[in-house]
């Protein structure tokens, strides 16, 4: 026996005694073995007090052996890699593992909050709703108190260093759960030639067989498991995922599995350079699903049933057989069914004294009762354990005779000393995934549990999860489900014989939802239903007295089934007590809804590789490298990275933007406008089509013409804008906003495909294929001429709002005489591959004109000086072209999308918000964008608002700040004074003016 591991059995178990290892719990060092869980290692070391309960801070120990464990919630690891809220029963022991109980505050052994237990009455159901209510100003304080006291794990405060990945998979049959039924189903499907994925959340396959001394075909059951697993591993189309929890069952047989990866193996496979994957999220689309996740044993509900040392009988058997750990020396077994008799036999076999089996059924057990008798274990049939003594550890069981009356008081007539109380209240099939998939649940009165009923998706349940509790039934049911799955797939099911088992028939379970106490249920010591959330029988009865009837409401009021538990341990007992209190049958009370995730899933697993640089795709223009080399800070627009400004000699944003603006106004500037959406429209019906979607008269445009165009939604609101160029009779070229490119293309396609399929028009996105270099300023023409252009660029030959194809510096380009700055300007469209070369040549030749590259910020200022809107900044989806003063764009001679809506009464209101310019009265204040506009200062809140600022900049060209705003009835209010009211600042007096601040007649762009 290893030093310190007082509860470790000298032989047996599936632990590796050749690999001893050390770990720590709450700062203290302990010894364990490879193959232990944190829970089994703690039990081996005799650590029975693991934490304090959520609300009442009662001492708690390990109850279960798997996902149902309510108490042993751990924080594992330190610093950034710390993982909160892991169940000790599911944590594989690793060398150096450091764990802390997440519930103790400030320590597990001494807990200030334990004093709260004495005030149990004020911490009853609805405690939080009732206590932390008034006064409102104290809410923040209450929250702090509740969070401190709740004591759940601490989230790491720096980025998770672990690596995660996602994998997609498809299969014919996904089997969730690798116990006897799951293995049988997987074998059946795999032998039929189906592609199979078998996932089990445990380290090893075998399920309940790992925990018991079962025999199959006359040999240890685990031999059969080993054979089945070996056969499945040999199959080419079978994937076995151990440590893989199927935690989500979504629509159309899409399931999610989180797999804890064995770090060493992964590290070896991938080389030392890369951190190994910690967890892998499988996204599986399965044709058929077999759910074989087994059943959870239910605790029994009696006074002080939460004391450390009260454990589920099946968990006790599991620790003995699997981990060679004996959790107690002198045990009492308390049950209402036959299964716990095996635990008594297991305990006796491991050398413990079984003081008694207390069986609530007057008739006791079936055939297994005889075996127990032969071992000399006393059986008290028709008795219950009504109360236990001991605080940090069970010291004894108080036993009473019971007649079977649900709420009758009983008298404790016998006390038996014990340090372990193994309980079994029957089994609840793990119907979580079945329920997530939309399947119904049906109450089975003979087995006292909900069984999976009609399925909504192509899935089936098998084994204990389907109410088949004996091993033989499990194997047969797995075979049945496997055959059904392959038959549904059109495959031939193989001939498989059901392996032989040696079980004797069991006596039926008898309902015992709440063990009677010496006093009535509201005055007796606490009878816990949900250990994790400290929900008691009295809480549920109180909720009913206060008027709660619906199970979902009672759940929320009492916190039953919250937290990691999600109804695994206490749900059925809670619903049964509720039903009893309401005087209704259990199926009428119904169950609460099961939702993903089945067990807690780390955020990192959900994110996978999509973190940091891989969070979102980055789109870069062909000129990106030049911008980076020039030191331009980038602005993210959609997924595009665009240069915001080009600082020189340590300039800040404002200095750089002022310089860039003046360069455009006085000489010439150049901007990379490649991110504009570009759509090629061609076909004999192109004009007809564009007439229907754009507001202006498209058919009047001759080839070579450009026009500013807007797109409206059918609701009449501005959706996008851009330049339309007619390249030929049957060919157009559209630009869209940077962010709207994909949306516009989809929108156009939708109309073309769904509404007007008779039109012969084809749409092609050219956004990536062409780059756009905007050259703007009075010297832009001279610059292009100097560079060498094969067409005349003078005003007569190439007027404003026209398009030409040309050769520029020997490269084929399209030139658009359009302007977003109000200056003489050319937008050069060139194949993206040639763009960097052209840009460099422009910069070379441009030195003579002090050609100045400018970014998005200068572009914004220049257009605002002209009163040009940016869709999405100056508009917000509730703005019509009329609101923007664009009536001139709306054709009266045709219909177009959204036109009818402009005549809706709401669009005709005189007080609609309209685009205006604003000047601050003081002359020097840049009004914050987004500031609300009010009529007068000095009003009491809530102050009516009459508009808001949409764009605001300092204009270097004008020498003062300017702003655009949407103001109710604004166009008719020129010259009036409003106040911009940014939060936390003095109101700023502003004057309503025309939005066209600079060159309002537009002469400069026409030269």
């Amino acid at each position: 026996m290893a030093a310190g591991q007082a509860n470790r059995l000298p032989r047996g178990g599936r632990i590796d005694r050749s690999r001893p290892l050390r770990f720590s719990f709450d700062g203290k060092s302990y010894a364990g073995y490879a193959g232990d869980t944190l829970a089994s290692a703690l039990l081996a070391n005799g650590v029975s007090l693991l934490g304090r309960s959520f609300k009442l801070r009662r001492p708690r120990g390990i109850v279960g052996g798997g996902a149902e464990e309510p108490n042993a919630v751990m924080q594992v690891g330190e610093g950034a890699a710390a993982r909160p809220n892991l169940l000790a029963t599911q944590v594989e022991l690793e060398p150096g593992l450091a764990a802390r109980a997440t519930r103790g505050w400030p320590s597990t052994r001494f807990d200030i909050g334990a004093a709260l237990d004495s005030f149990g009455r004020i911490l009853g159901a609805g405690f939080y709703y009732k206590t932390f209510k008034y006064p409102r100003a104290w809410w923040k304080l209450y929250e702090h108190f509740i969070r401190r006291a709740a004591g759940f794990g601490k989230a790491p405060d720096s980025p998770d260093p672990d690596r995660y990945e996602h994998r997609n998979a498809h299969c014919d049959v996904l089997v969730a759960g690798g116990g006897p039924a799951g293995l049988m189903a997987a074998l059946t499907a795999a032998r039929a030639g189906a592609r199979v994925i078998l996932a089990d959340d445990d380290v090893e396959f075998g399920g309940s067989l790992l925990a018991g001394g079962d025999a199959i075909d006359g040999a240890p059951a685990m031999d059969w498991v080993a054979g089945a697993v070996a056969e499945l591993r040999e199959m080419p189309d079978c994937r076995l995922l151990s440590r893989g929890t199927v935690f989500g069952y979504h629509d159309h047989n899409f399931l999610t599995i989180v797999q804890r990866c064995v770090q060493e193996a992964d590290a070896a496979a991938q080389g030392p350079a890369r951190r190994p994957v910690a967890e892998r999220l499988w996204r599986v689309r399965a044709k058929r699903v077999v759910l074989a996740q087994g059943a959870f044993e239910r605790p029994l509900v009696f006074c002080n049933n939460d004391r450390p040392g009260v454990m589920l009988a099946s968990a006790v058997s599991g620790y003995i057989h699997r981990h060679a750990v004996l959790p107690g020396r002198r045990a009492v077994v308390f049950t209402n069914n036959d299964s716990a008799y095996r635990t008594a036999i297991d305990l006796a076999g491991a050398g413990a004294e079984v003081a008694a089996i207390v069986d609530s059924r007057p008739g006791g057990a079936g055939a297994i009762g005889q075996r127990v008798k032969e071992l000399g274990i006393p059986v008290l049939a028709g008795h219950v354990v009504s109360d236990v003594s001991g605080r940090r550890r069970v010291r004894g069981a108080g036993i009473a005779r019971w007649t079977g009356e649900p709420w009758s008081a009983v008298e404790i007539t016998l006390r038996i000393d014990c340090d372990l109380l193994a309980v079994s209240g029957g089994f609840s099939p793990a119907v979580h995934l079945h329920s997530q998939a939309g399947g119904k649940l049906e109450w089975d009165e003979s087995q006292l549990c909900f069984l999976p009923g009609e399925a909504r998706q192509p899935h089936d349940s098998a084994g204990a999860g389907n109410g088949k509790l004996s091993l033989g039934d499990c194997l047969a049911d797995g075979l049945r489900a496997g055959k059904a799955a392959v038959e549904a797939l059109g495959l031939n099911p193989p001939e498989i014989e059901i392996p032989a088992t040696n079980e004797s028939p069991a006596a039926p379970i008898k309902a015992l939802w709440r063990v009677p106490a010496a006093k009535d249920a509201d005055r007796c010591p606490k009878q816990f239903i949900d250990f994790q959330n400290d929900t008691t029988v009295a809480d549920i009865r109180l909720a009913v007295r206060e008027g709660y009837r619906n199970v979902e409401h009672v759940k929320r009021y009492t916190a039953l089934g919250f937290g990691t538990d999600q109804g695994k341990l206490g749900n059925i007992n809670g619903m049964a007590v509720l039903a009893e209190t309401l005087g209704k049958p259990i199926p009428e009370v119904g169950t609460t809804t099961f939702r993903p995730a089945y067990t807690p899933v780390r955020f990192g697993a959900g994110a996978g590789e999509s973190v940091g640089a891989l969070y979102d795709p980055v789109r870069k223009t062909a000129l990106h490298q030049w911008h980076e080399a020039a030191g331009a800070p980038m602005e993210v627009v959609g997924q595009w990275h665009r240069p915001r400004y080009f600082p020189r000699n340590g300039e800040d944003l404002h200095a750089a933007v002022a310089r860039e603006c003046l360069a455009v106004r006085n000489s010439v500037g150049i901007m990379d406008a490649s991110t504009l959406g570009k759509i090629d429209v061609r076909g004999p019906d192109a004009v007809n089509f564009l007439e229907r979607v754009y507001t202006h008269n498209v058919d009047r445009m001759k080839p070579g013409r450009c026009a500013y165009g807007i797109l409206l939604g059918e609701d009449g609101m501005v959706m996008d804008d851009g330049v339309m160029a007619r390249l030929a009779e049957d060919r157009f070229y559209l630009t869209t906003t940077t962010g709207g490119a994909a949306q516009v293309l989809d929108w156009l396609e939708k109309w073309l495909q769904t509404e007007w399929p008779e039109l012969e028009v084809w749409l092609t996105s050219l956004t990536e294929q062409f780059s756009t270099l905007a050259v703007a300023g009075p010297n832009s023409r001279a610059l292009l001429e100097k560079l060498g252009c094969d067409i005349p660029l003078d005003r007569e030959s190439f007027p404003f709002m026209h398009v030409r194809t040309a050769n520029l510096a020997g490269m084929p380009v399209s030139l658009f005489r359009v302007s977003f700055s109000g200056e003489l300007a050319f937008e050069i469209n060139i194949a993206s591959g040639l763009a960097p070369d052209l840009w460099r040549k422009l910069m070379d030749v441009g030195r003579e004109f002090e050609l100045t590259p400018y970014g998005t910020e200068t572009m914004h200022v220049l257009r605002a000086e002209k009163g040009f809107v940016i869709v999405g900044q100056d508009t917000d989806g509730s703005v019509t072209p009329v609101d923007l003063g664009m009536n001139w764009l709306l054709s009266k001679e045709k219909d177009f999308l959204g036109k009818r809506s402009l005549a809706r009464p709401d669009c005709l209101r005189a007080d609609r918000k309209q685009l205006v310019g604003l000047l601050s009265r003081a002359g020097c204040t840049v009004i914050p964008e987004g500031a609300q506009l009010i009529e007068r200062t000095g009003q009491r809140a809530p102050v009516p608002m009459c508009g808001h600022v949409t764009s605001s900049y300092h204009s270097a060209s004008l020498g003062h700040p300017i702003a655009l705003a949407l103001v109710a009835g604004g166009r008719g209010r020129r010259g009036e004074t409003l106040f911009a009211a940014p939060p936390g600042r003095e109101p700023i007096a502003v004057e309503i003016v025309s939005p066209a601040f600079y060159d309002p007649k537009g002469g400069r762009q026409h030269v």
Partner: protein
Amino acid sequence: MLLIECPWCGPRAETEFSYGGEAGIPRPADPDALSDAEWADYLFYRSNPRGAHRELWNHAQGCRRWFVVERDTVTNRIAGSFRLDETVPVPASAAEKQPEQGD
């Protein structure tokens, strides 16, 4: 995540598609002839049924084609996908609707 059959590309994951709302709502031939109420009916009002629902989907990350899917809004079961130029069969009858489900 739904598995949607694109009539051109075959079954694909929902993430490849974008949703286009209720299908079979033709744009009025002469919007100006409609009253405000009639126009609002076209613009804003949708049937939002409990059960079989004809809806438009676009294979946005695939062939970019719009098509019609008949989906049960309770169970998400898909009865079929149809090209816009196909004659779409009569929708699933109310009798086939799923009984009430919890959520």
